[in-house]
């Protein structure tokens, strides 16, 4: 039998090789799953991973990639900062919803203004909404030592009920003939998050995602706060001796991830989604957890992972319309990716040895 032997230092090679290996393993396992569902696995894999970039409709689908990757990257970077410090914000979905509601509410409150200041104000309101929602678990954690995983998750369900209330109640379109949902931002130019460059699918959310990635990279590699985050995650005791305040770290990491998730929600609802509706949120807050791990909790890695995950969304939609693959199959596929990643990751810290004889 094999046994595991701890490496003296983590393997640099496997640190970078893990994600590609996990993707390949997921393609194989996913292919088997698709074959079991009676689809041609090669055709499905090609539709998901190849067609959106090089296929017949690539001119349109390439733009969709950044549209989907933007919010994922934005949320995942925030989450990764916390994960690195051992702070588990699992409720990004709720912060995303609250950011969208806050941002949209500010815009809709002054409908139909033409002021060009309204959009920046909405951006701030969106970030504030997400920050506020993340502060609840953060403060409860620092004041009462409450588990932030459970609290942030419970707040997702609360946010979903508020969203239902918003789209059928206080943010409902007064001219909507009784249908649920807010006014559509596509007919509200001053507050709309339109495309800056359509062929690439670039809107302000995409810009924010890429800028945030660079800033987060600088924070982690060049700034004292980034060092403290890494130290607290790897050696909590050493961090305390170093003078890192755990409470401040919790508030900072939760605050950043909440604000970024709120921003993502605000850009989404005023752009691609177009309006507040009961189900405008599509689980980006949860998928971003996979993205954060796939990107090795590294901002630049997360950008790549975000695009890869966006590819599975865009390609998955293609496979769903062209090949009749159920949407849930893509969800399973994404889940598998995280499993394989976590499994292969053992090779970063351990090596397999043939167990021969007794020790």
């Amino acid at each position: 039998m094999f046994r595991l032997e701890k490496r003296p230092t983590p393997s640099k090679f496997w640190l970078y090789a893990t994600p590609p290996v996990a993707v390949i393993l997921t393609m194989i396992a996913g292919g088997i799953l698709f074959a079991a569902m009676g689809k041609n696995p090669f055709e499905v894999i090609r539709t998901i991973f190849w067609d959106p970039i090089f296929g017949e409709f690539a001119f349109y689908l390439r733009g969709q990639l950044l549209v989907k990757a933007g919010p994922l990257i934005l949320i995942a970077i925030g989450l990764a900062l916390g994960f690195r410090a051992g702070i588990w914000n699992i409720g990004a979905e709720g912060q995303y919803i609250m950011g969208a509601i806050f941002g949209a509410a500010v815009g809709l409150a002054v409908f139909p203004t033409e002021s060009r200041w309204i959009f920046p104000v909405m951006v701030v309101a969106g970030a504030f909404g997400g920050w506020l929602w993340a502060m609840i678990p953060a403060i409860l954690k620092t004041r009462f030592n409450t588990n932030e995983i459970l609290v942030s998750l419970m707040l997702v369900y609360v946010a979903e009920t508020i969203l239902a209330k918003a789209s059928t109640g206080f943010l409902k379109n007064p001219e909507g003939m009784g249908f649920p949902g807010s006014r559509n931002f596509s007919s509200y130019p001053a507050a709309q998050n339109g495309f800056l460059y359509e062929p690439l699918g670039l809107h302000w959310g995409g810009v924010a995602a890429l800028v945030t990635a660079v800033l987060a990279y600088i924070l982690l590699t060049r700034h004292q706060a980034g060092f403290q985050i890494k130290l607290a995650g790897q050696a909590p005791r050493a961090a305390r001796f170093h003078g890192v305040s755990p409470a401040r770290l919790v508030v900072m990491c939760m605050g950043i991830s909440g604000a970024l998730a709120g921003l993502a929600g605000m850009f989404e609802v005023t752009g691609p989604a177009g309006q507040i509706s009961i189900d405008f949120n599509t689980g980006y807050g949860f998928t971003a957890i996979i993205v954060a791990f796939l990107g090795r909790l590294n901002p630049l890695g997360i950008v790549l992972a975000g695009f890869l995950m966006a590819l599975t969304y865009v390609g998955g939609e293609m496979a769903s319309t062209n090949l009749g693959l159920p949407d849930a199959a893509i969800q399973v596929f994404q889940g598998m990716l995280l499993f394989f990643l976590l499994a292969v990751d053992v090779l970063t810290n351990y090596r397999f040895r043939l167990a021969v004889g007794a020790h």
Partner: protein
Amino acid sequence: MDIGGINPVILIATLMASAVPILMAALGETVVERAGVLNLGVEGMMVIGALGGFVVAVHTGSPVLGFIGGAVCGAALSLIFAALTQIFLANQVATGLALTLFGLGVSSLGGQGYNGIKPPPTGQLLPDFLADLPVVGPIVFGHDWMVYFSILMTAVLWWVLKSTRIGLIIRAVGESHEAAHALGYKVNRIRLMCIAFGGAMAGIGGAYVSLARVPQWVDGITAGAGWIALAIVVFASWKPWRVLIGAYLFGGITVLQLNLQVAGSGIPVEYLSMAPYLITILVLVIMSAGRRGKANGAPASLGQNFHASR
């Protein structure tokens, strides 16, 4: 005898039934966490159990086989978690989350074509003349057999954890895996079995949702019950009887808010339906504020992987 349009006898009787899913899942997770493993995939295992139980019950026509099917499916999913955390030494928090995402995906994939079907009813255990008695009838005698089974499991787990050798070993592994290893116990193998047991219990809990509570199949049917179960384990300080109290408390709140919705209390429906989650948070705060620092009753090795270096 109605109070504000709500009959207290029926309220108590319904809360006992509505608490079964979270009670079963939380009991399973208690054992898992007592062995030092934090499995955040309860929601995923429950939803898989809900689907597995539903499918088996619909095809065989037997709710008993359905619950067994739910247990098998929940345990099977938990084995993925067990393999990743115990063999590949993956981070337990991340793996648990992945398990939930995966379970929700698999269940919605496998559940296609099962919408709108009625499962065979889970029968009442005791004869009608007992259940028809006033007050004690509905509360004590009128339940289906799963309600009694869940109470029985609470007692069994309390006894096993407290006064048997197996319970002692499980607790040793959870409190100090180094010491348990030094005594010659196979830490990871014991944890693996506990995880599978937790998965089976979560699966049964999920099956009760789709077979008795709702009863039909819809996507994401467990709606966060798994997460509430996790919160209840903390609330209960990892003790089976307190898990029962916690589950009944939350079952009560859920039933009460549903009843208030029906009775038309004037409180908007949205605020009532977020009540169980808000109260869960409140209880978590009270429980963790009361015991700051180390002495919160959590197993000392909770969430830490064990690798035998010698």
